[in-house]
Every structure is written in C-alpha cells, then in structure tokens.
C-alpha cells in the first residue's frame, strides 16, 4: 500500500447498541490525510442512526473537527447507560 496516496488508516470500534447498528465490533477505515472525525462520521452515515453518536479518539471524547492521525483508535459512542 502506498501510504502517501492512500491516506491514513484508523481502527474504529463500536460499542453497546452501536455494534448492532453498524453490524461490527471493530473495523479498519482508510481516510484521506487531514480527515477529521466528521469525515469518518459522514463515511459511517452516523447521522442516520437511531441516537446521536459521540466519538472518542484514543480514549478521550473529541469534537467533530478533531483531525485524525494514522493508527488512531476511534470509538463510536452511543448514549451511555451505566449506573
């Protein structure tokens, strides 16, 4: 794979009900260099899911304009229901 042309690869993890909505626990996505969380959210059609999703990068919640880096672990976080 030519990394320069292909962009960056991120490790996307789906939790709770999001696992059912996306039919996966984890998947690798290749995105253009400079891609933000919003780029990934659009790719996932996140806005079409039953509940609003939040995103965490490397275990910290981030805003949609957060720029992703190669190898980031991106968690798709549906509304939490602990306690």
């Amino acid at each position, binding site marked *: 794979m030519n990394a320069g042309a292909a962009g960056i690869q991120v490790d996307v*993890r789906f*939790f*709770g*009900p999001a696992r*059912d909505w996306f039919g996966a626990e984890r998947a690798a996505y290749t995105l253009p260099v400079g891609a933000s969380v919003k780029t990934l959210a659009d790719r996932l059609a996140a806005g079409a899911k039953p*509940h609003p999703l939040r995103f*965490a990068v490397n*275990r*910290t*919640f981030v805003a949609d304009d957060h720029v992703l880096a190669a190898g980031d672990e991106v*968690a798709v*976080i*549906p*509304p*939490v*229901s*602990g*306690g």
Partner: protein
Amino acid sequence: MNLAATDWVGLTDQPIEAAALRARLDAAPPAERGGVCVFEGCTRSQRHPQHGELICLEYEAYGAMAREQLAEFTRRARQRWPIGAVAIVHRTGAVAVGEPSVVIAVACGHRAEAFEACRWLIDTLKRELTIWKREVWQDGTATWSDPTAKPAG
C-alpha cells in the same frame, strides 16, 4: 493519570463488596473523613408488557476508557470539594435484580461536601462513563437500555 494515594477506582465482573470498598476510605486521616457518603445503584425490578419480569441487567464497558474516566472524575471532584478519599467501582456482566451495579464512596471532613461530591460523581458517571446495559427479560429477550427514553435513574 495518577490518582491521589487515598483514592481507588475500578471495574469488576464479580459481585461488589460494598463494605470492602467503603473500608478503602480509611486510608484518609480521620480529620478528612468526618462525613462518609456511600451511594449504591442497584438493579430495579421491572415488568415488561411483552417479555415478563426483568431478570438482570448486563453491562458492557469500553474498559480502557472507562477506567481513565473514573480516575478523571475523581480528580475533577477533588478540584471542587475537600475530599479525604474516594472509591468507585462499576460492574460489568450480569447484575441480578436487587444487586448493586455501581458503588461510590466519598469521605470528606464534613457531611455537606461528602453528599455533594457523591451526588456529582454518580450524576457525572451516568452522563459520561462509557458503559452500556442490556435488559434481560424472563422470556429470554435482551434489549439495550435506552437512556433517552425515560427519566435518568
């Protein structure tokens, strides 16, 4: 990501021993634990019109993130209240009706701040902590709990 020496947070897939968690607060000097507040959140019995009685709640966590969050919550609480010690544990796996899924124990010099800090910790945990639960019913059906569908509890 360092915790104060008197604080402890964690996840467990085993039944919570609330008394043992409470005992961790004794790490703080007596002057800083004049007021101790312990909150337990337990599985409520419920009846589903189609699926029958609730058997248990099944919790799953984004464990690596949840542990870091619990540590972060205790640090934020310490910025707001004069806390002697905090201990928090949350369950993963199946929690039967009547059993605790979360226990938060807070020691402060006086009761007012112990109550306030404990209340803030459970409210923050319920809003932010990366844990999800499924309701498992008598007929075997399991449904994801919808936190947006009913008042927080």
